[in-house]
């Protein structure tokens, strides 16, 4: 069966350091939009670390939750796109075909996770910042919707490499930029269709939940809830 790429994010380990946010910008040629565009809500972060405060002072708890495209199996954003710019690939990813996108932005409205970002202006890199652009990832132009692709360029590269070496893709060989840069190992990426892979094992954990799973989107990202410490006061 074709790969079914998925991810597990352990909220118990995530420290909210936002290394994944910057690593994603570096890998996927995401442009910065400047202060006044960011003030108007047009900043693009394919992965963001959502922060929720709970409780009033002094017993306040903070929860971090990295949110990225969940590559849903029943994605609400796919059937609504009139030009098939957003569709479901064979390998279980939610493909975003930049050249087919005409910018109706319906997919972004349909997405309950708000993980789709629109190029309101033509992305701009003051020279020589453009030298940092990753040649494996296409640079989107104005009027195009973009979102996390699970670093599809890395998946492609590993698959081509594996094919060249006549072997299957090893579990853990493919690491999107965010998973690679996460210091507390909070994020694990792998093939859900292979039951022995680490991501499948973790996805079966009792702490596993799906973000907004009740909407029937069948997301491919499983969040492992925080465990409350229940140690004893005395040995």
């Amino acid at each position: 069966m074709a790969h079914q790429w998925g991810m597990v994010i352990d909220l118990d380990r995530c420290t909210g350091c936002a290394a994944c946010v910057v690593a994603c910008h570096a890998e996927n040629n995401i442009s910065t939009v400047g202060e006044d565009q960011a003030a108007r809500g047009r900043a693009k972060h394919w992965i963001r670390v959502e922060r929720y405060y709970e409780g009033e002072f002094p017993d306040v708890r903070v929860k971090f939750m990295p949110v990225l495209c969940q590559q849903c199996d029943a994605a609400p954003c796919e059937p609504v796109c009139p030009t098939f710019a957003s569709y479901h690939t064979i390998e279980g990813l939610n493909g975003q075909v930049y050249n087919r996108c005409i910018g109706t932005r319906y997919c972004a409205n349909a997405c309950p996770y708000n993980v789709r970002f629109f190029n309101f202006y033509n992305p701009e890199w003051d020279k020589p910042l453009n030298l940092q652009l990753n040649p494996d990832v296409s640079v989107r132009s104005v009027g195009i919707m973009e979102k996390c692709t699970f670093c599809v360029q890395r998946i492609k590269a590993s698959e081509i490499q594996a094919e060249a070496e006549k072997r299957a893709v090893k579990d853990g060989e493919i690491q999107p930029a965010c998973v690679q840069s996460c210091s507390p190992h909070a994020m694990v990426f792998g093939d859900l269709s292979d039951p022995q892979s680490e991501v499948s094992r973790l996805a079966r954990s009792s702490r596993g939940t799906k973000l907004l799973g009740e909407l029937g989107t069948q997301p491919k990202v499983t969040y492992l809830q925080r465990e409350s410490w229940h140690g004893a006061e005395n040995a």
Partner: protein
Amino acid sequence: MAQKTPEQINEDLLRPLSGTSGRYLIVLAFLAGIVIAALCSFFWQVYAGLGVSGLRSPVFWGFYITNFVFWIGLSHAGTLISAILRLANATWRRPVTRCAEVITVFALSIGATFPVIHLGRPWLAFWLFPYPSERGIWPNIRSPLLWDFFAINTYLISSVTFLLLPMLPDLALVRDRAAGWKKKVYSVLALGWTGTPKQWNRLERAMHIMAIAVIPVAVSVHSIVSWDFAMAPVPMWHSTIFAPYFVAGAIFSGIAALILAMACLRKFLHLEEYLLPIHFENLGKLLLVMSLLWFYFVFAERLTAWYGNDPSEMTVFWVTQTGSFSPLFWLMVLCNFVIPFPLLAIKKTRTILGTSIASVTVVIGMWLERYLIIVPSLSHKYLPYSWGTYRPTWVELTITAGTFAAMVMLYMIFSKLVPIISIWELKVGLREEAHPAPALAPSHTQPNEVGAD
């Protein structure tokens, strides 16, 4: 209606087509200015990118889609009213039908441009058309936007023909009076209409079928427009009530627009003898019914959301009810129900002026209603982290103003080119009053006692 010879009717109704007064030109120029400004701001948006508008994440739809739904809604009144009145053979319909059909055509053509205006890359809009390209790529039939494409085009074709067919006899009438190049133009337009009974018979029958066909198309168009929203899992969008709610809203705003148009025509083109208070009386009653229906739908939607108490739905509920959108919400209820209901319910106030005031408030109210369906739901979706408010910019305001100016301008130009009240229907009506037709059964079913051989 005072007894008028056909000759006098011709005189009265063709008078607007003659010279154009100075005042008319000034108003036309002013409106044209606004429309040009709107066009320029649209091209600026294409040149610079959608960033010039106020749209943002998560509110990706704003003024443009509000205008789209508003103008498509406005267009439903024309066909629905004239079609229903034709089928019901209501005698008072005769002067009203063409004004209504004209509103439909122009409102629809304006509304249909918005799916292109709001695109991020409008120059690729032709990808919606299912043409066989050598890449073997077809558009996505499952997308509500493609249903929009089919529905609006079907509706545009049918409503344009629904307007043009009854115009043929009047065009022939004008053709005979015109001279020079005008004669050539009108004779082309009139398709050589001579008025033989065969032609009349076919025209009547065709109009009859079209009336039957246009009503379901109109209802389907606006329910598809509502499904643009209902298909997306967004709080307060994803509900089954949207289709009937939008259709009711459409008819509601349509009737208001019709009353407004007729009031203006009556005042500026001095058609006092033809657009009688009885018309405003009847349309006023229709508006009253629709206002009640609209309130019923809003109440039903709010009740189910409130009672169900789903957290994300409740967020949008409270945001519109008491939160940052509440002034707009209560203004909408004021305009759509609180003002029109007493005005139209009391017989004394259901005059031309009364119904006009009610219609103005209803038009405003309905525009707000579309805005309040789209923006609050989008800005308060499931994850509170990424909520965001939306402020339109001058580009969107100019384009919205441009649409209203375009509507009035097109209407004024149309009333200069073609008699705004269909003359032959008026004459038939006149004659019927003189000696009413025998039974109610439509005549052509009677056996032809004469000449049947």
